[in-house]
Structure formats: C-alpha cells, structure tokens
C-alpha cells in the first residue's frame, strides 16, 4: 500500500490531476444537462401532452448502457473526453427533466393564483415563484445525476484511457498492483459523497425558508426516485388517467 499514490507514468497525471480530470468529466455533463433540462422541463410543464413522449424517449435513452453509448460515439468524437461526457450529459438530462417538471408542477394552484394577483407575468412567475419552490426537487435530481455521473466516468477507461480515475483500474490489472484499484474505487466514492454533500449545502443556501425539521425524518426523493426510468415509465404506461386527474 505504500505505492498507493504512485501513479504509473502511462496515465500522464498525478493523483490530483486524475481527481481534477474526473471531476471535470463528471460535472460538466451534469451542468450541461441542467442547462438543457430547464427549458425542456418548462416546455413539458407548459404543454402537458409533451411530457409523456419526452419521458418515453428519455427512458429509452437511459436504457442504453454507457459503454455502448461511448463506443458508438467514438466514430463521431474520437477517443476523447467529449465522447465520455456526451452520454453523461444525456443521462443527467434524463434524470433532471422529470425532477424539474415534478418540482415545478408541485407548486400549489393558490400560490400561482396569488402570484398572478400580485401582477406577475408568466416569465416572472416562473423565475421568481415556480423555480425557487422547485429548487429542492431540482437539487434532488442533481444529486442523483452527479453521483451517477461520477461513477460512470470510470467506464471511459475502456475507450482508450478516457476514464480519469477509472484508468487506474486498467493499470492495476496490467501491472498487478491491486492498490491502484482500491485507490480508484475509494477516491471515486469519496468524490461522489463530497459532491453530494456540497449539493445539500447548496440546497440549504438556496432554500433558507425551508424549516430544518422538514429535512429530517428519513431518506427523501433522491433515493425514493433513484432513476429517471421509474417516473418515466410511470408516465408512459400508467399516467393516462392520472395525468388527467392531475390536470384537474
């Protein structure tokens, strides 16, 4: 174990370099996914009929294994970080759209009516009322997307050392150095937990009105709804009558 941080030269990075690379490969796609998810989710809220087909498409996208996604993209984007980041951005998008839609939809009618009565137009109402109230749901989605993104970057190792910390796994095997695999797993898990905690911190900052007590009492929706495919199919298969009921 004394060579724990002794990274083989073929990875061309120090341990810290790999950590930075890993965070970049994992987090940029989540941010890109968020930027794309906000307008898509808003469209789905605005035009209800759009939600079911969008969920259907995202469910199918989510069912594609990451490795296959990477390999097919090699033809377009080469064996690069971008090839790893595009599928991760898509997965993030798939997680975030239902999270945002549910969050925005959960704003009670009376609140919206009050906002309208105060003279807020649709844009201000969205930006100043619906979005802030949806913050907890959005952050819950971000947490799932971020943790899974950090985990999935490692698979990039298989497409020509594009897996950041995951690249340690190949060398652990090739050079018979199990400590490198331990390093990869532990560091990746630590990054995921830290990123998750950071998002919780962001949530607390952004929702000062939420009583602390509301956050206690067991695991919430991030775990309750770990994957987008869950709400997605619910939407696609079961929601027919329910959606109508929701629409009132």
């Amino acid at each position: 174990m004394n060579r724990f941080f002794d990274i083989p030269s073929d990875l061309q990075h120090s341990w810290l370099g790999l950590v930075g690379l890993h965070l970049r490969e994992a987090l940029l796609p989540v941010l890109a996914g968020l930027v794309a998810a906000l307008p898509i989710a808003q469209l789905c809220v605005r035009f209800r009929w759009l939600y079911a087909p969008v969920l259907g498409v995202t469910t199918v996208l989510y069912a594609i294994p990451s490795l296959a996604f990477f390999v097919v993209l090699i033809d377009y984007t080469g064996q690069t970080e971008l090839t790893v980041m595009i599928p991760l951005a898509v997965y993030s998008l798939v997680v975030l759209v239902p999270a945002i839609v549910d969050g925005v939809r959960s704003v009670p009618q009376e609140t919206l009516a009050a906002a309208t009565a105060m003279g807020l137009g649709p844009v201000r109402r969205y930006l100043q009322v619906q979005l802030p109230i949806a913050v907890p749901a959005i952050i819950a989605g971000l947490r799932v997307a971020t943790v899974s993104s950090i985990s999935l970057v490692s698979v990039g190792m298989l497409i020509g050392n594009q897996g950041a910390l995951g690249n340690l796994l190949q060398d652990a095997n090739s050079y018979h150095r199990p400590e490198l695999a331990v390093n990869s797993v532990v560091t990746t898990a630590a990054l995921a937990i830290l990123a998750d905690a950071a998002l919780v911190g962001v949530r607390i900052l952004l929702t000062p009105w939420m009583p602390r007590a509301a956050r206690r009492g067991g695991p919430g929706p991030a775990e309750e709804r770990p994957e987008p495919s869950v709400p997605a199919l619910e939407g696609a298969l079961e929601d027919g009558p329910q959606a109508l009921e929701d629409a009132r």
Partner: protein
Amino acid sequence: MNVLHFVNAFFSDGSHWHGYDGIPARLAEHIRYSLLALGLAAVVGLPVGLLTGHYGRGGNALALIATAGRALPSFGLLVLMFILLGFGMVPVMVPLVVLAVPPILVTTYEAMRSVDPSPVDAARGMGMGESRVLFQVELPVALPLILSGLRSAAIQIISTATIAAYVSLGGLGRYIVDGLYQLDYEKVVGGATLVAVLALVTLGVFWAAGRFAVSPGVRRGG
C-alpha cells in the same frame, strides 16, 4: 453511420442466432445474471426496509448506507473484486448488488413510512399482532411503491450487467466489448439494442405485476 442499418445487419446475420455466442445464449446469460443480482439485493434490501419502515427507526442510518452504496462506482468495484477474487460470478454480483440495494432499501422504507397511520392503528385496535399488521395492512398498501423500487433496481442491474463482459463473463455486454475491440459497430449497436429492449420488457413485466399484485382498493386510492 446509420444505427438502424447496424441493427438490421446484426439481427439478420444468421450466425448471430445460434451457438454459445448466439443471441439466445447471451440473452439467457444476461437474464440469469440480472435475476441473481436482483434476488440477492431483494433478500438484503426488502427485510431491512420493511422492518425499519415498520418500526420507523434507522432512517438516518439507511440514508447513509444508501448514499455510500450509490457513491461506490460499479465498474471500479467490478475490477477491484476481480483482482482480489479472480474469475467467477462473485466479482460481478458485488457491484450489481451494491447498485441495487439502495433503491430497494430506501423505497421500501419510504413506502412503509408513507402508509396512512389510521388503518394501522385500527388494525392494532382490532388486536392484530405486529407481524399481521406488517404483512396484512402495511405491506399491501406499500406494495406499489415497493415494486417501483424493485423495478428501478432491476433496470439499473440490466444496464450495468453489461460490464461483466470486461472480466470475461458472458451476457449481452459481450457484444459491446467484443464490438469495441473488433471495431465491429454492428455488434455494439446490436448488443445495446438488446439491452434496451430487455430493459423495456422488464418495465412492462413490473407494470403487469403491479396490476396483478396490487389490491384494487390500493390502486384506486393511489
């Protein structure tokens, strides 16, 4: 590159339909790995989730366990387990079970916690014992949510079981990994299509299971 063309070429090639590397054999392997992993994860996750949910204790501990479980990278765990344990099913089952336990555990806990307390109190008032309350009152009401946890776990397992091919096991990942090294996009796209279809069929199975297993009263209420 036309994805549909690859799909067509893959499935119309007769040699892909028989033998140890044929679609039926690889599909059967994939389903076998997935069922085994889901079964193991359910054996771990369901009882713990039911009991903690029933007694309303240990929610914080569960959240921690679930976060830790989700944070562990599946692919890294697979390679690490392979290095430590060598060939076999165990190195594949460890990451798949670690992946599947958090959704099952947490959803089951949440499902039990979200059961309306008044019928539970009524059942106790009628003199039901704790185990009857759990299995005859709480469980039927919580079942739809519990099934959604199992479904989520199943989908993740099916998609992730593809990495087993990296440590020389079979399953549909074989086509994806072989296709990568043979630069054979037909195999990659064909394998990915099979995985996606299997995932969608699984969603359908869970939907049907929900129809049959969930009591009509609960369904209407939910």
